[in-house]
């Protein structure tokens, strides 16, 4: 048992940290929108940060760090631990990069994609040139993929796709949809859907913005109107879409920004030390000390899960349940951290981006709103718990 990084891991950590410090604008912290563990404030999904985030993605690509967790034969280093280190550092600095392409599409293509698809997409993903968005959820079925309504009808060498997706993060700033659609209208739900790649510029694709409660445009509705998708864009086997999405969901649930939690904690500690109330620093108030200690313990727990998951992947284990546990823990932690931060800042925490006197550029108020999104996105906390109870602990499913 060893909770320390190896020398190689430490060196890598320092290298990526040095890179980040070098390339980030010195005043980045003042305008970076980001709350850890949430889905509504990722700078790389904001239109205003597109130029910088694309440039940074390509820089990470040049370094070979986007696909660092991939097998060596695909240009990676086969190290989930290094990918985790990279994720930790980037998140700590609120680095505007990363997304579905590297965390979901790439790994899934490597496992189940055709050689043709791999050749077409992996290089662009690894170099940071192309981005993906997820087309899973539909308006009347959040996590309930069984109720899928979007259809893909066989038309020779292509599928004709019709329907609607929702909550598609970043569809407006990426190039390809990673979409599940129903291909067999008669088969039982779990054997009827297919995963496919749909380029945004295919005729019949319409993307409409959804503004979230933080005021950001991160989500979209996407409409398909007789969209012709070549069959070579099918990912994995036809009608095996559910299994492939489940596989991809694990990657999604593992792709967590850990460093952001450490960062916010450091900022709150600094705030407590530097802010006076009734003539003495907040940091001397035992209630404040206890609250910050309590959140620090939960952050530490989460970090052990985070590193453990990477370690497991590097041992070739499939972290299905760990992915659910990790997703549950980090999104609930996001809420607890937002509550703690808000309580610490008090009315100053309510001050919004751009307001006079707003500490941390209004990040805490925004985080309080954004923290709502963690436990409800990408499979709610309730769904994760049900997965853990039934698949993990073997409790009987509801009749």
């Amino acid at each position, binding site marked *: 048992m060893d909770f320390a990084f190896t020398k190689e891991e430490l060196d890598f950590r320092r290298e990526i940290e040095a890179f980040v410090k070098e390339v980030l604008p010195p005043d980045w912290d003042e305008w970076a929108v980001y709350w850890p563990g949430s889905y*509504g404030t990722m700078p790389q999904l904001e239109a205003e940060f597109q130029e910088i985030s694309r440039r940074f993605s390509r820089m990470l690509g040049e370094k070979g760090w986007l696909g660092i967790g991939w097998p060596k034969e695909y240009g990676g280093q086969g190290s989930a631990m290094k990918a985790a280190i990279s994720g930790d550092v980037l998140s700590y600095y609120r680095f505007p990069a990363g997304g579905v392409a590297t965390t979901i599409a790439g790994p899934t293509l490597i496992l189940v994609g055709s050689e043709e698809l791999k050749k077409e997409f992996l290089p662009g993903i690894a170099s940071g040139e192309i981005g993906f968005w997820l087309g899973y*959820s539909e308006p*009347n*079925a*959040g*996590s*309930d993929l*069984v*109720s899928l309504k979007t259809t893909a009808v066989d038309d020779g060498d292509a599928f004709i796709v019709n329907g609607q997706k*929702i*909550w598609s993060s970043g569809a407006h700033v990426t190039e390809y949809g990673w979409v599940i659609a129903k291909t067999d209208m008669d088969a039982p739900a779990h054997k009827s859907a297919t995963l496919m790649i749909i380029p945004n510029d295919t005729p019949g694709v319409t993307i409409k913005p*959804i*503004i*979230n*409660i933080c*005021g950001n445009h991160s*989500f979209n509705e996407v409409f398909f109107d007789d969209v012709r998708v070549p069959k070579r864009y099918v990912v994995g086997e036809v009608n095996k879409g559910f299994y492939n999405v489940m596989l991809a969901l694990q990657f999604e649930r593992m792709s967590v920004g850990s460093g952001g939690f450490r960062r916010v904690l450091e900022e709150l500690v600094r705030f407590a030390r530097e802010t*006076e*109330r*009734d*003539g003495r620093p907040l940091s001397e108030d035992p*209630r404040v000390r206890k609250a910050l200690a309590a959140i620090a313990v939960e952050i530490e727990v989460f970090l052990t899960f985070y590193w453990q998951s990477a370690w497991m992947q590097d041992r070739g284990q499939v972290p299905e349940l760990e992915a659910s546990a990790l997703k549950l823990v980090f999104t609930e932690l996001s*809420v607890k951290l937002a*509550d703690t931060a*808000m*309580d610490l800042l*008090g*009315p*100053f*925490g*309510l*001050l*919004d*981006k*751009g*307001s*006079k*006197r*707003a500490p941390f550029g*209004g990040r805490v*108020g*925004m985080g*309080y*709103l954004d923290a*709502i*999104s963690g*436990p*409800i*996105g990408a499979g*709610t*906390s*309730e769904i994760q718990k049900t997965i853990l109870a039934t698949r993990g602990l073997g409790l009987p499913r509801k009749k």
Partner: protein
Amino acid sequence: MDFDLNEEQKILQRSAADFLKKECPKERVRRIEETEEKYSPDLWRKMADLGWMGLHLPEQYGGTGWSFLSMAVLLEEMGYNICPGPFISTTLLGCVPLLHAGTEDQKQAILPGVASGDLILTLALAESDRGYEPSTLKVSGVRSDESWVIDGVKLFVPDALSADHILCVARTSAASEPGAGLTLFRVEKDHPGVTVTPLKTIARDNQCEVAFDHVRLGPESVIGPVDEAWPAVKAALDRAAVGRAAEVVGAMRATLDMTVAYAKERVQFGRPIGSFQAIQHYLADMWVDMLGTRNLVLQAAWKLSTGEPADREVSMAKVRAGRMGRKATTVGHRIFAGIGFTMEHDLHLYHRRTVAADFAFGDSDSYHERVARALGL
């Protein structure tokens, strides 16, 4: 004991609910949020015409003379409908110190204007320390011949942008005992040296920084006894805190209503989500939380109306509304999930305001501390 509202209060409750449903739909709330003052003169005028501004003012000042409890009943309905504007600022923060400590001339000069809807008031109290205890107040009032000079910065002054008069609590001498040494001044907002800067909040209310730069005021500006303003200020603070708590109860009720309706109709995994035990238990808790908070708020409002010491009841109501309001809207978001996370949905309007209410007029720690003192700790 009697847990029922009286007939007048029930009529007020129903008529307020009807009026606000019609005049203050969410589209209007959103439009008002986009104004800098976060208030609609038109809506304000209509509310004044219904007698709301003077509801608890004595009849000789154009009011109706009802109890503070009636105000709480009205505020619960305003919270249910998110009625924006400087209502608490004017009727409670502004009027209560005048009622408690003003001279007859001062009352006559201001209160009828409030009752008619012509005057908007507010109170400048907290400072950079964010505390609402006297010991945290440093803005100074220095006597200079017959007049006073005010210097310093007040924060989180609600509705100062729309206010005509700002009451300002200033330290006029060192505290000999807790609460002493503070004097209350009435300042017109456009008085030379007064600068109002809006602070932008996630609650989209109008919180302001009010800077006093060598503001010179005549002796007629002093409200109540010099150095002994605290009892009148505290009377206002307590009523504002309970009034805000009543709004939170309304917000909790609205959240519950919205969420229950959605849980009945939204189908996932082949059944209404309201049939899932996790959702049922969330909502049962939300209901019980709301009922209990409502009881504490009504109890505090009743106690304030009796004129007896109400520190214990006020603090308990405020702190519970603060915490439970946040919990209710947070849980509401779990049930609405994605759709509730969008700007076009109404739930976040409540979520924003419940967290702001937790910090309004002092945070939970400070009200827990007041409860502790009431317990004899």
